[in-house]
């Protein structure tokens, strides 16, 4: 069957002028960069076009910020003018970034269902470019969603400075890159749409709850401490809160009441170490995501 249908047998040789026998290399770097840009652009187009997603992506964090925030404030009380809403704000912003990034990455499951993944995978381009574009797109979209959350800061008494805004966006991007690569890896393993909800419930929610986004990670029981320290999100949320708190005018009492540091084996981790952990996490899952997509098709 293969040999018989060989085009050369009836088409009189590949002698057509368009096919001048220049040995075209299989991978052209500039073309691959265009692919990354195009995949990135598609993520943005889809994000902007689905306004319901932008709104629904806001509702959950807003619920946590105001409903949980006001509810818990009564219990936690105010220390030196600082309350639970201010504590939880960075965590909630991180949550919205993480959820948007994850959702964006998991749209690969949709792409598989509706066939578009095939269009991408059969194309003569490197899978690295596809994963890079997807990661860049998911990260941009997630950071945008997190940046929209910044408008809520004054409402809960968080003081924003230009430097803080830049720091927050930078950290949002890093967090989003890590979560997108993780999400693409997970998505490459999901074959059915039905599994999507399960993954969101069983993976994403525990990760968020155990990341320190909603409560301080100090003074927890041993088993819970272990789990939170194993959760990579912990190391993304902590620096985020640290830069936000550093820009606030807080009394020492308030700082003691609402701690931001993460301790590992009795040592307090510096922001640099925490960020390094997130970077390693992102790199590992980038490779896994690439391998996951290479398995398919």
């Amino acid at each position, binding site marked *: 069957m293969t040999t*018989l249908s060989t085009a050369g047998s009836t088409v009189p040789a590949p002698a057509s002028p368009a096919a001048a026998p220049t040995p075209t290399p299989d991978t052209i770097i500039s073309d691959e960069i*265009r692919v990354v840009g*195009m995949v990135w652009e598609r993520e943005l187009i889809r994000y902007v*076009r689905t306004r319901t997603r932008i709104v629904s992506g806001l509702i959950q964090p807003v619920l946590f910020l105001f409903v949980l925030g006001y509810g818990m404030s009564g219990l936690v009380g105010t220390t030196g003018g600082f309350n639970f809403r201010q504590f939880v704000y960075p965590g909630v912003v991180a949550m919205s970034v993480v959820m948007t990034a994850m959702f964006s990455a998991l749209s690969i499951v949709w792409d598989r269902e*509706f066939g578009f993944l095939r269009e991408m995978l*059969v*194309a003569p381009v490197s899978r690295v470019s596809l994963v890079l574009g997807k990661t860049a797109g998911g990260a941009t979209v997630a950071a945008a969603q997190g940046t929209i959350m910044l408008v809520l800061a004054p409402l809960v008494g968080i003081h924003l400075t230009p430097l803080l805004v830049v720091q927050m966006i930078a950290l949002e991007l890093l967090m989003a890159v890590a979560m997108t690569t993780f999400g693409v890896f997970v998505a490459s393993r999901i074959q059915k749409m039905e599994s999507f909800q399960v993954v969101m419930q069983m993976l994403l929610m525990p990760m968020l709850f155990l990341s320190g986004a909603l409560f301080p990670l100090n003074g927890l029981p041993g088993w819970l401490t272990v789990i939170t320290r194993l959760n990579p999100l912990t190391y993304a949320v902590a620096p985020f809160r640290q830069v936000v708190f550093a820009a606030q005018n807080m009394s020492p009492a308030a700082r003691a009441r609402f701690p931001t540091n993460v301790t590992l084996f009795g040592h307090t981790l510096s922001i640099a170490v925490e960020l390094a952990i997130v970077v390693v996490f992102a790199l590992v899952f980038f490779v896994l995501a690439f391998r996951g997509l290479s398995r398919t098709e």
Partner: protein
Amino acid sequence: MLCTLASPTSGHATVAGFDVATRAKSVRRHIGLVFQEQTLDDQLTAEENLRFHAVLYGVPHAQVEARISRVLELVALSDRRKDLVSTYSGGMARRLEIARGMLHTPKVLFLDEPTVGLDPQTRALIWEDIQRLREEEGVTIFLTTHYMDEAEYAERIAIIDHGAIIALDNPDVLKAQVGTDTVAIETADDEAALASLKRAGYKVERTEGGLTAFVVDEEAAVGPIVAAAGVPVRTVRAHRPTLDDVFLHFTGREIREQHGEAVPMMARARGARRS
């Protein structure tokens, strides 16, 4: 396999001058693929889908706009360029996919059952598109179909049964292998007609309810036969073998389902390149 989606277990093949086993990427850059299932992003517009494809297949930046306009023209979708694909009908989406397959000026366009599940009007439109591609873009078209009447358009047909090619030729030669044209008549006096037709040099046989003459060209033979019969002719039926006959001839008539395999009604058709 030829599209490099599967690896050959043995043998080798080249498509557009590239070996499918060792130059898979080059092969893919020079072929267009249209799958049975839809592979468009319906949240993007037609133009955005095409632009995405142009980048994936390395269409030079300066040519992208012109190629998009050109392929949309080929499938008569230019006026829907800015519309979301989610607003397209099934047939339009399929035509857009064919246009997309042509976007990077492939040498061979593979179409996997391009008209399956579509209404006759849409099927006709798609075939107009395909003919236009062949004539105006000079591309070799390699397609599979279940509809034998569609295979008529092809210049070469392969019938594949149980994974092996059992017939490969142009439609006329295949039909000739099945039998010749026939003209069947019923007359007032079959005996007399038989005698006079034989005298006139026709190859005639008595068949159930009448006579059957074996001729070279059924259309041209009807008039002379009626005249040569010498007696009043009541009915005339002229028949030329169709590709359905060819298909049944080669694959046999027995029901295959009992072997746990559906009857593989598949013909490969290809148009020759015009350069």
